[in-house]
Structures are given as C-alpha cells and as structure tokens.
C-alpha cells in the first residue's frame, strides 16, 4: 500500500519529476490552472493548520485535519464543473476551497455553532458535511439519478475514506449507481487509517477493484500527485457525462495528522510510516514540479502564503466574533411550519430566556 504499487496511475513522481509525459501533455490545464491548484492546496494546508490551532485554543470543539491529503482533494475538485454536486464527508476543506464555500460558515460546524456547515447546499452544489460514515454516498447517487432525469449534465462526487468502504451504505450506493447508471464519482481518499484501524483490518480486497462487482470502472491513483488525481477525476466526469457511467477512484494518500484533534495517534500510528510519507508530501511535490516548469516563482509562492494567512485570519475572526445563534432557530429548523407541540416548547424556552434577560436587566 505504498505509492510504489503497480496499479498506481501517476504523472509526477515524489520529487516532482514528470514520469508520464504523454499523460501530462494530454491534460487540459493551462498555467493559470496549475497555479490555481497550487494555491488551493496551499490555502487548504494553512486553513487546516489554523483550524487545528483554533481547536487547541478552545475555539473549535474538534477538528479533523486533512494534512497530507491536499492533492487528492484539490486535484479531484478542480476537475469538476459548476454543475457538479459535491457530497463531502468531514475532512474536505480542500474541496470546499475549490468550490468557493464560505469557510466561516463551514468552520462553525466544527465550532459546534451549527450542524452541516453549508447554507443552502442546493444552490451551492455542496452538501452538508456528513459524519455518519458512507451514508452520503447514497445521497450522491440519488442526486445524480435526479439530475439525469432532468436531463442535466452534472455529476455527483462523493468523498469518503478507506474505512467507509466497509459500510453497507457504500455497497448499496455503488450498486444503485451501477444499476441506474447514475453519474457519480465515488472518490475514496485511502489514507491508510480509519482512526486506529489500518487498511489491512478494514478489507482484504483492494478498494478500486470493488468497482468491478458493480459493473463500472475502478481506478487507483497516486493520491499525492495532484495531476494524476485531476486526470482520473476528469476521465470519470467524462464517462459520467457521456452515459452515466459511475467510477470508483481510489486515491492512495496518507493521513499525516491525527484522526482528529481528539485523537491520540501515538497509540497506533507508527512514526516510521509517517516519516516515510513525509517524503511524499503532495504540496512539496507539486511546487517542485511547477518551479521546474517555470510556472511559478518565489513571488507567487510568497503571495499565496500571504493570502493563506489572510484567509486563516478571516476564518478566525469570523467564528470568534460571530454572535451566538438564537436558540429559537432549533425549533424553526425542525419543520417548515412549527407544529403545536414545538410552538409550545419554543415559547417555553423563549419565555425563560426573556425572563432571565429581564431579571439580569432589572
């Protein structure tokens, strides 16, 4: 399960050198695209570090870092069109950045101020952050079926981990997608671990090869090679748009951080393994490549770093300074119209709060 694996599609090697020149040439990416991808990866890394810091400072309840998975997220998301719909799990800040999601609102999820993290997912084409593993794969399939019924050319992409492939819902989603020719991309970030459980205890098969059982293609790609990920995803969207063929992409990457800020990974994750993957850093690899190609220079890298710092600061201010939400909302969010029993409960809370305020004020 190292990136040296035979079946691994790859364009850049860990040093940033092009190993598949033909594939590289065939990519429909202009220099500005490459820069945008680099930028997104760098922003993702910075936002990720900031959120980890915010959690340590007590500003977030818990945060699951994406450290090390920037190429997998950015490469795949960059291959999407506007009409495509993202179904994230809980670690997809890199995807959110590409899709222009409001990161303050998104981070409020981790602060415990709101659930879901996305206002109006339908317009944003970005579903709520989803914690119950693999459940959202079915939502992606349903959306894909639905958009096809409308003659839309969008496809759905669902992000999940290696552990998620063990859940029944993953299976049902793949099977429905195959049967209904739902234009979905099942994007697995195989980061080697599901909390403390290593891949070998998760499945005895290979993830990308599970696709065959559902009658659609499965591909394995170097998840730390942003260009290879881009290509695999673009090919998948092409297939999906053509006739609804789904694809399962297994992006081989690595969770460089803990499972979440609540995790003590020293109990299970071997230092040597982390060390080994450190040399495969996706951001470093891509920067080397871009520098070699002359697509970016020092000034650009610095500018990106600045922007990243600003974005991080914006998120910090945004969440720390947000006024508390009104507790009325939890009643109003439940149903479109308040039924009598909820009205009663809402009024009780509101009266109590007003009583308190008055008490405090008087």
């Amino acid at each position: 399960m190292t990136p040296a694996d035979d079946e691994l599609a790859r364009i850049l090697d860990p040093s940033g050198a092009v190993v598949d020149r033909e594939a590289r040439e065939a990519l429909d990416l202009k220099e500005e695209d490459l820069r945008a991808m680099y930028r997104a990866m760098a922003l993702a890394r910075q936002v990720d570090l900031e959120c980890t810091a915010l959690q340590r400072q007590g500003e977030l309840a818990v945060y699951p870092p994406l450290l090390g998975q920037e190429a997998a997220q950015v490469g795949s998301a960059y291959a999407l069109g506007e009409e495509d719909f993202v179904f994230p799990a809980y670690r997809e800040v890199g995807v959110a950045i590409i899709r222009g999601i409001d990161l303050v609102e998104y981070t409020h999820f981790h602060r415990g101020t709101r659930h879901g993290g996305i206002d109006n997912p339908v317009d944003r084409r970005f579903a709520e952050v989803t914690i119950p593993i693999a459940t959202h794969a079915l939502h992606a399939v349903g959306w894909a079926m639905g958009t096809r019924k409308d003659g839309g050319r969008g496809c759905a992409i669902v992000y999940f981990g290696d552990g998620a492939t063990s859940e029944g819902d993953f299976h049902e989603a793949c099977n429905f997608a195959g049967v209904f020719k739902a234009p979905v991309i099942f994007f697995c970030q195989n980061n080697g671990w599901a909390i403390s459980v290593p891949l070998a205890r998760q499945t005895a098969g290979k993830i990308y090869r599970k696709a065959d059982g559902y009658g659609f293609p499965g591909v394995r790609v170097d998840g730390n090679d942003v260009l290879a990920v881009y290509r695999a995803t673009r090919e998948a969207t092409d297939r999906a748009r053509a006739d609804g063929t789904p694809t399962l992409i297994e992006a081989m990457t690595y969770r460089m951080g803990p499972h979440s800020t609540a995790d003590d990974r020293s109990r299970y994750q071997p230092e040597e393994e982390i060390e080994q993957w450190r040399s495969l850093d996706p951001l470093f690899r891509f920067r080397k490549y871009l520098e070699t190609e002359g697509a970016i220079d020092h000034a650009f890298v610095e500018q990106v770093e600045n922007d990243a710092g600003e974005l991080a600061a914006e998120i910090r201010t945004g969440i720390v300074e947000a006024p508390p939400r009104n507790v009325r909302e939890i009643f109003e969010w439940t149903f479109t119209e308040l039924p009598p029993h909820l009205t009663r409960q809402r009024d009780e809370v509101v009266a109590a709060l007003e009583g308190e305020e008055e008490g405090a004020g008087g």
Partner: protein
Amino acid sequence: MADVTMAQALNGALRRALADDDRVLIFGEDVGTLGGVFRITDKLQAEFGEDRVFDTPLAESGIVGISVGLALAGWRPVPEIQFDGFSYPALDQVISHVAKYRFRSAGTVNMPIVLRIPCAGGIGAAEHHSESPEAYYAHTAGLKVVIPSTPIDAFNLLLSSIRDPDPVIFLEPKSRYWSKESGELEPNGLPIGRARVLREGEHGTLVTWGGMVPRCLQAAEAAAEDGVSLEVLDLRCLVPLDLEALIASARKTGRVVVVHEAPMTAGFGAEVVARVVEDAFEYLEAPVLRVTGYDTPYPPAKSEEYYLPDLDRILGAVQRTLTF
C-alpha cells in the same frame, strides 16, 4: 357513490399525485411491473413511465438514502418499503438524514419525502410482516407520522403528505387495505395533524389508530348495548398529535383507554397517556389505561388473535376505568 377499498384509495392518491405534480417519483421493491405486493402502485408504471415509477434493487437503506439525494435534486420522492419488518435497515437513513436534513442545513433545504410502509398485523402473515414501528418514528424529531384507518382518509392524507414540504412516515395498516368505504376519491383538503371523532360518547374515550380502529368501534358498539357510551377517537396522525381533540375528549368523558397493536412498553400509547395526564388531569375520573400488544416479539400468525387487543381486553379496561 361507489365503494372503494383502502388499497384502491391509496392507488388513486398516488396516481393523482403523479398526474398533478411532475416532480413526484415512486419507487421501491417490486412497485413497477408488479405494482407492489399489495398492488398499491398497480399500473402506475405503465401510465407514467419508468422514469417516474421504478423498481429498485433490494436494499432499504438504499431506497431511503437515494430519496435524500433525489430531494436535493428537487424531486418529491414517495418510496415504498415492502413491509414494516423491512423498514429497519433504513432506520439510519431515516433518523440520521431524512429527519435531520432540514435542521442540519439551518432550515435551508426541505426533505419532501413520503415513506410509505405497510404495517401491523392481523392478516395472518409470516414473521417480520406484522410489525408496528410507529413509536420509533414518532420519537424521531423531524418526522411527521401519519396512519389512516379508512379509505377516504387514506386518500386525502396521502395527498396532503405528498404536498407537505417535510418528511412524512406514512404507515398503512395492512389489515385495512381491503376495508371499504363509500365515497369519492376527490381531495377534501384534509390536513395532516387532525384526529377524528368516529363516534361520540359520554362515559369514556377509546383513543386509537390504524388497524385497531374498527375493533374500538366494535367495542363501543358492544358497550352501548350495556348502556355505556364510548367516544372513539382515531388519531390518524401521531406527529403532529391533535392535542386539542385528544384533550377535549379526555376532559369531556374523564375516562380514557388507549388501544394499539405495538408492544406496550414505550409504545405511542404511553405518549397519549402522558399528554392526557398533563393537560386533563383534573378531569380524570380514573387512570388512563392502555390495551396493547404484549411485550413480546410479534407472535406467529396462529397466535396473533391472543396477542392483538380484542373486544374482551378493551372492554375489560373500560370496565376498570368505570368502576375505579
């Protein structure tokens, strides 16, 4: 006016919903060519095409899970689960997503899903085909729970459920599928959340729903012969509960017996008791009692007559409240 069965009424409601709103989709196991094992979707695929009415693979979590996605794509999914006992594999999708999606999106997305589930016993069916899961759903905040007992109600409540912007668990008591009522299958605007007094009475109230409604009416009939006048309240919707009607009847008669098929412990009958006690305590002449299925798994078909509340048990409870 012709007689219609509840099965026909439900079929009629689905046909009408498909015709009136081209965003309505019907799917599930065997709902297409076969028209459903109870024929509730009979001929709908032929009429509206495979795009609108389609068979799915055999996977209940899948059926409900894609409903969430279809709703996000602007459709109004009306999935069918084949039998009560097979609704459980879908509970995670129902509880974690269908019930919560609006909440999770801070009120920005609706989930206009109607999950149809033939339910409950009394038809001599095999294991896992006679479950009464209403309490699971009623306890899950974010769901409405509807359970009609007559054909005309079934028609109208199914239409209102499909028009509702929020998720509805629509329970169809199988023992009522072949019950008949004379009337037109024309929408009467009946909203979700209204109970119905099926019989007025003075001395006590039987509160019930679904398959136990006719039995309670029989009990009231029998009691009347002994000079006891019982009111019969068909809740029709468990969430939202028609508190007004329930409390009015409890206050009026002062004696309440709740009757349902599900096991007693933590069944919806307990909720009815708790509501009545909270809002009508000073009017009560006797404890509010429950007559329900026993706290065992649903028994084999040959034993269901002992398991389901019967006239003797219902009248026995009424008697206890009268002589309290």
